[in-house]
């Protein structure tokens, strides 16, 4: 019996969300009186994988097959299933990311496991039941879900817990070969296109986010959003109408029909706060709203607010951040 953690890597680094997942997995292992092993996917360096010891991981499996550098659904599923069987994993923990959801859902069938996605807290195991809390109704509610299968798969929502850093602790990195065949790579991507991210901060992974709505008036004014984001080292986002008219790319659109984010700080500039927009951001820890209309519904969901003109307020905020730094 053990806990297996799926760690996503890119350009040699372990993704921030996977450090959280590793922390989560190690804590579940401690609860169950066992150890946590990680299986790394994507492009990783041995040094960075060994550092997963800081999150409480004992051992890291890594298959250096070069075709695993990019996400291949079938190959990743087989790789992780093979590792789960070898390790006798009872609990599998992964990120609630596009990769995590793609492989987690297939694995739940292959391993006959109970799957919970969008999980926001450590499990409760009293009374012999295994219960996880997950977000539901697009951020408007939570549900406690009993995972009744012998095996369980948990996809942890980003930024739901803080990654632990026990400096100096290292994990043993072990070569792993899942004996993948060419057929496992039949759905390999023909091409991978990465988008330019403001200041290099990936929106789904961002701890701080500055977001603009129709109140920004046009794409030519977005430098105001970007300057504040750069000063804060934040990611940038937008409302749906903004991406619908191509002021901003679609991958920045947050909300019910866009991506859901839960950063530590979300700064909404010229966004009214429609319920469908809130669905994508209302689990942010702190929400700041800048809107010239004091009646804008977003103020009801905000922690801090400024009733004012974005064109006046944003430069002041950027200046204040620069001063503080």
């Amino acid at each position, binding site marked *: 019996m053990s806990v297996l953690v799926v760690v996503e890597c890119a350009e040699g680094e372990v993704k921030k969300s996977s450090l959280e997942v590793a922390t989560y997995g190690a804590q579940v292992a401690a609860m169950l009186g066992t150890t946590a092993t990680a299986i790394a996917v994507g492009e990783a360096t041995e040094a960075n994988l060994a550092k997963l010891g800081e999150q409480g991981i004992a051992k890291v499996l890594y298959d250096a097959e070069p075709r695993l550098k990019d996400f291949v659904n079938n190959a990743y599923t087989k790789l992780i299933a093979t590792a789960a069987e070898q390790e006798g994993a009872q609990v599998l923990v992964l990120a609630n990311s596009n990769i995590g959801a793609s492989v987690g859902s297939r694995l*739940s069938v292959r391993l006959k496991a109970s799957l919970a996605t969008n999980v926001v807290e450590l499990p409760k195991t009293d009374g012999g039941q295994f219960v996880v809390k997950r977000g539901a109704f697009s951020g408007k*509610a*939570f549900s*406690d879900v009993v995972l009744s299968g012998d095996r369980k798969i948990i996809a942890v929502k980003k930024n739901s817990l803080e990654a632990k850093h026990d400096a100096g602790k290292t994990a043993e990195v072990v070569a792993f070969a899942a004996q993948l065949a060419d057929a496992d790579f039949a759905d390999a991507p023909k091409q991978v296109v990465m988008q330019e991210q403001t200041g290099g901060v990936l929106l789904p992974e961002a701890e701080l986010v500055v977001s603009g709505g129709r109140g920004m008036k046009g794409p030519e004014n977005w430098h105001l959003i970007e300057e504040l984001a750069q000063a804060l080292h934040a990611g940038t986002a937008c409302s749906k109408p903004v991406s619908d008219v191509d002021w901003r790319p679609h991958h920045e659109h947050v909300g019910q029909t866009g991506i859901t984010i839960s950063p530590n700080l979300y700064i909404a500039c010229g966004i009214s706060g429609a319920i*469908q927009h809130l669905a994508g951001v209302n689990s942010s820890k702190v929400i700041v709203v800048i809107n010239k209309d004091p009646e804008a519904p977003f103020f009801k969901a*905000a922690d801090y607010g400024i009733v004012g003109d974005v064109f006046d307020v944003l430069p002041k905020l950027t200046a204040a951040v620069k001063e503080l730094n």
Partner: protein
Amino acid sequence: MKFLVCISNVPDTTTKISFTPDNKEFNKAGVQFVINPWDEYALTRAIELKEANAGSTVTVLNVGEADTEPNIRKALAIGADDAIRVNAAPQDAFFVAEQIAAVAKDGGYDVILMGKESIDYNGFQVHGMVGELLGIPTVAPAMKLDMAGTTATLEREIEGGKEIVEVSAPFVASCQQPMCEPRIPNMRGIMTARTKPLKVVPAVGDAARTQVAEFALPPKKQGVKLIDAANAGELIKLLRNEAKVI
């Protein structure tokens, strides 16, 4: 090409969420149900591809009780040819996936499209379960879908970018924007939808693997603290010293 489009019946996006007094069930009283917004991308794209490929058909599928039929009819009005309702209260995602897989296998569908996720249970998981049950590829979430014969080219969103993936039918894709501009029914569609076939079939498969123990609403916000626009820099100090987020 035979398209199967899975639609979920969900509370309208503006619904104020509440639960029964024991917090065990969603309170449906007074709630209007709609086709899951993501599923509208799947439906419209299937109809577009049908129109471009003579001889193709689009079947919509819902796992639900009779109260979902108005939205199934709406999908028919938008342009699907026929519909299947698996007559069961959905228990969990695996249960739903088993029903979809059984219908897909029975009917020999080539392309199984669904929405990225349901806006009520936010599972984002049915796609992979169906693909695995049928032993066929899944592409999730897909932002673009083109077909040439039985070969599909899709754009899959990954964090920070996209992958261009090619698969041959049969396959599963879970759809999201900007795949297409979702259509709304027109008068003619609404009239013809009334007589399009809607088949009701019994559920199959095993018991659910998860059970909801309890629902809860998020804790209420304290209320907003307003800062004077003239003194906007003050906000940054509060974010550092009070909220401690920067």
